[in-house]
């Protein structure tokens, strides 16, 4: 796993001249990667009809949250050394920090309600609506990256492109369902259809 690789490299002094930066960038990259992997499950499942894929979604989402926590910790600890005053100034003044904090904050309720018990307690529909926050979290994460680079936008734009593609697939599915829905006017069918597809 990526964390193992980071720890291994850290122990072997193989993180380059600026290990803290390497850790910050590494954990940030993996947070975004796991967010996008999580978002790819639903389209993949629909396209391939491999329904077992849904079983991976929670794990991938929690990995995204885990790396997000590590990423935030490197900032709080290794960059700001718990200087609350400085961090608050950063969040207010630096838009890339604002975006990053937004992305992380939006992940918190998702991680907290990731259990089966929460789904039951909230009810499928409400749980799903809540978990659409991941769209905004991923978007904020990508914006966080775009706003942070100096001149070379290649990498953040790659993430942006993948995110846009994943969202586009959803729009296409949604439009297709909308156009076919009036034909089957049975409410029961459309209800079960939407439950399956989200």
């Amino acid at each position, binding site marked *: 796993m990526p964390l193992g690789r980071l720890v291994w490299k850290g122990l072997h002094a193989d993180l380059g001249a600026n290990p*803290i930066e390497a850790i910050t960038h590494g954990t940030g990259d993996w947070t975004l990667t796991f967010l996008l992997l999580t978002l790819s499950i639903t389209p993949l499942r629909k396209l391939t009809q491999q329904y077992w894929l849904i079983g991976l979604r929670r794990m991938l989402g929690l990995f995204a949250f885990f790396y997000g926590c590590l990423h935030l910790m490197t900032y709080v600890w290794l960059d700001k050394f718990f200087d609350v005053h400085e961090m608050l*100034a950063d969040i207010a003044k630096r838009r*890339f920090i604002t975006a990053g904090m937004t992305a992380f904050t939006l992940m918190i309720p998702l991680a907290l309600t990731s259990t089966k018990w929460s789904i039951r307690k909230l009810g499928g529909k409400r749980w799903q609506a809540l978990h659409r926050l991941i769209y905004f979290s991923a978007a904020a994460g990508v914006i966080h990256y775009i706003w*942070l680079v100096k*001149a070379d936008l290649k990498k953040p734009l790659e993430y942006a492109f993948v995110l846009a593609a994943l969202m586009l697939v959803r729009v296409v599915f949604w439009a297709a369902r909308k156009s076919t829905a009036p034909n089957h006017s049975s409410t029961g069918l459309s209800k079960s259809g939407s439950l399956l597809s989200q």
Partner: protein
Amino acid sequence: MLIKKAADIRPSEITPKSVYLNRRKFLAGAGTAGAAAALGIGLREAIAPSLTAHAGNKIDGIRKSPLSTTETVTPYKDVTHYNNYYEFATSKDEPAELAKHFRTRPWKVKIDGLVEKKQELDLDTILKMAPAEERIYRHRCVEGWSIVVPWVGFSLSELIKRVNPTSKAGFVEFTTILDKSQMPGQQRDVLEWPYVEGLRMDEAMHPLALLCFGMYGEELPNQDGAPLRIVLPWKYGFKSAKAIVRIRFTEKQPLNTWNISAPREYGFYANVNPNVDHPRWSQAKERRLGEFTKRPTLMFNGYDQVASLYSGMDLKKNF
């Protein structure tokens, strides 16, 4: 007082042993076996007529300079494997590999603009203009990290004095080589190529401004700007242009690449200033490579002797 003194020297500030030993070796080489070393270089030259290089060749007769800091020198490996050189790549570790075969000989520098005699100077002519000095300088990147490097060169003023700029010359512009075939980074338009930088005449004439061709007692490695660059320790690193092929004297303030790229973020002066933040991040602190905690950034990177160059100027506006 005593306690304070002791606290000033932290264990992290003791020179890494490898660096210390290298310097020892270099001194020994320069002293007792100077002639032999020179012969060795000559021989290597004759066998492999300098495709890649000179990086690694010792420079003889380097003088010490009172302008040097006594702070711990950053290890050679870090300085050569962690630096920005967008002409090769936008990452900091790739230039070392990608610059390996960069040709630094023959090398000519065009001197033009407002000078009495426009000319093309051969690199070797330039290197002989003044005795080589070691200048151990703090180097602060606009991104918030810093290093301490034992550069080798002499004051830029030595060259400027010899090429006689006219009285109209108010600024100097430096241009980096444009060579897409050798510099893969120039094949992407991340920045406008070639890289240009500029200084006001009085800045360029300041003794701290270094015309640099070596570091750690050796000729510059390709990834650090070989064969000729400038080093301006009181300014953010991007002002210190690398692989210079043209020095032009102008009446008006020249443009500089990062200013063209993002005028709100990178100014012409780019003096290290903890009180003026980059619009996207703070400049109050820096991470010295090899240190765990951040240290406060000093005004003019601690080179107070340049302050008079900017007296009466609003440094918030002229960032």
